[in-house]
């Protein structure tokens, strides 16, 4: 159907150079999970992959150390962008985004994952329609965020005229920065008839009729589709899975450390208590209040035990 529409519309062009002279962007994304992802991770990846008509889903990658092999994998499948979802310890999810031959590579830690299915949102959109990418202004403030923005733009943005893409625009992807993390949301664009047209006042109707003649616009509201995701950038490498580290996030604390701290804190409670007990016993001993051990009080001459001995 899409093809028929295109041919009718005549929007398909043979040459990749658009009317402005700018080269048409052509890119493909390889989506690869690592071994050891949980079902929620898998669903999330599937949800995101469903929105990338220019993406190619590959099987789970079975190596955690030889990540450079991913470059070859992507080259073999003719992709110039790579999304590698790495699960660690069966609970933490990391996302590596890389441009293929030359980099850069960005590593994110994923938090607050919620898949489309478990969110129960009413929004829905065409599979493979091009999203509007909405970026927070903060993305243009710092160089590392600029790089991240470009990577998002090329990975999540569907290139014009991609093979399986649909000709209409019905969803928007939002990238916002709050609390040092990148929050990703996905909304359906819902167009409804403007309310003013059903106005009961004569005045309102007048204005609406005016607006109808001039703009003939519909109201827009958004309905969330899902999934939800929060990314905290960890590291940026210059090459693709190699090369020097050109950015490292100092604020990032590894989840392992967080868990270890928590455990230590819990263990610390017991330690503190037992220490307190020992201290108290020592103190009692010093005051001569213990029957065994500690200091003995000097016997008083007027003590009844002394007097009547």
């Amino acid at each position, binding site marked *: 159907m899409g093809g028929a529409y295109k041919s009718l519309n005549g929007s398909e062009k043979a040459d990749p150079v658009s009317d402005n002279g700018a080269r048409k962007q052509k890119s493909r994304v390889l989506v690869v999970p690592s071994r050891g992802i949980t079902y929620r991770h898998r669903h999330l990846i599937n949800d995101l992959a469903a929105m990338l008509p220019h993406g190619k889903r590959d099987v789970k990658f079975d190596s955690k150390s030889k990540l450079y092999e991913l470059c070859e994998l992507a080259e073999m499948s003719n992709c110039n962008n790579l999304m590698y979802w790495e699960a660690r310890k069966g609970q933490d999810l990391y996302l590596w985004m890389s441009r293929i031959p030359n980099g850069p590579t960005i590593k994110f830690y994923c938090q607050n994952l919620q898949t489309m299915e478990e969110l*129960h949102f009413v929004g829905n959109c065409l599979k493979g329609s091009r999203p509007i990418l909405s970026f927070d202004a903060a993305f243009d403030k710092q160089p590392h965020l600029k790089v991240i923005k470009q990577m998002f733009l090329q990975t999540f943005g569907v290139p014009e005229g991609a093979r399986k893409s649909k000709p209409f625009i019905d969803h928007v992807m939002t990238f916002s920065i709050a*609390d040092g993390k990148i929050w990703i949301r996905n909304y359906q664009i819902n167009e409804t008839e403007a309310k003013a047209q059903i106005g009961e006042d004569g005045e309102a109707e007048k204005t609406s009729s005016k607006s109808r003649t001039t703009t003939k616009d519909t109201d827009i509201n958004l309905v969330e589709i899902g999934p939800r995701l929060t990314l905290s950038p960890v590291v940026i490498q210059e090459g693709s899975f190699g*090369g020097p580290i050109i950015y490292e996030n100092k604020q990032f604390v590894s989840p392992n450390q967080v868990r270890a701290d928590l455990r230590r804190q819990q263990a610390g409670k017991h330690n503190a208590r037992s220490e307190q007990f020992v201290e108290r016993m020592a103190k009692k001993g010093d005051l001569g209040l213990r029957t065994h051990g500690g200091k003995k009080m000097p016997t008083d001459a007027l003590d009844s035990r002394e007097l009547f001995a």
Partner: protein
Amino acid sequence: MVTKGRLKMALAHEKGVDFQKLHQKKVAKLAAKKKQPKTKTGGAKDDSDSEGEEWEDAEKEIKGGAPVDDDEDDSEDDDDEQVDVAAYLDDSASSDSEVEMEEKIERVRQPKMTALQKEQNKLQKKQNKKKAAPVEEEEDDSEEDPEEDIALEDLEDLDDEDKEDLMPHQRLTINNTTALEAALKRISIATEKSVPFKSHMSLAGAEPTSNNIPDVMDDLKRELAFYGQALEHVKQARSLLRAENVPFSRPKDYFAEMVKDDGQMEKVKARLVEEASAKKASAEARKLRDLKKFGKQVQVNKLQERQKAKKETLDKIKTLKRKRAENSGDLGTHEADLFDVGVEEELKDSKKRGGDRGGDQRNNKRMKKDQKYGFGGKKRHSKSGDAISSGDLSGFSQKGMKQGTKGKPPKTARLGKSRRNAGKR
């Protein structure tokens, strides 16, 4: 031929033997080209490499299957083949989505930096610092003193024993601005206003969204801020796309596969229905509960009303009786008597039922219970006889005494003793 090229490439990648040779050639070439202005990514690379290693980058553009210049070395040939491979693979998959891959940049280590290069590096670093001072973090500023020779990223590359002298507890921030800028320059696609919007479809906000989020943990406000950002951009995008004659809204008769399939949407709908019905049910239950609470009040009110009505009728009867008494002279005595009996009885009855303890407010049920279980006063000796009970002769009657037993007379009289005894025998 194609497979051979791939194999070759893989081998080269695995062993890195070819690149050494290539590098020497390239160095020679670079020396020849040195006078030409080539500062695309040089600055960044100089900054990034620290202890005498430098990444050589040669950015080349290949256009489809265009013929390659003669003076390119065999690495170029390799890349050409790679492109062929890509094209081949692509043809097999889809002719539509042809991807232009960037030329791979070879990174080779150089043994030592010359003194001159070091000087240049320092200069560049200072410039960079000036440029990036506002955005960089405080740690960077404190670390990157002009006296210090070691850059931040160099510290990361030091050996462990060297690192021990430094502050081991503090993680150092790496923020190599120049390298980041270079990477950005390499990968970025144009999103300026001159470029048609439909080619990239991305919009950047004017104001950071985090300004609208007072507390990140407050879900409602946070999501509202995201929603606001999206809505603003959608409105902008729609006008931009309409200006470029790009179809925006989906016609009603266009059906295609959706991201969420029908099963999923059905589930969502069922959930919505369930939620709505649960809400309705709970509202109804609350209403009932309220009604029950209110119903008791209604009942009490009704009882009071009834008693009030009764009182009124009794009053009426009283007044009627008084009137009768006044008018009795006029009427015949017989008639008056007839009337009086009915009224009197009614009054007596009501007085009895009205309770010994005046006031008609007492509950019927209560009274019955009091009657059954007793209320107030002493309960003991209630059954023993006293002056009143012994004086009460209502149970006696002469007739009854004459008849004998109170109950039915015996049907057969008792026979005499002799006959009874005779019958036994």
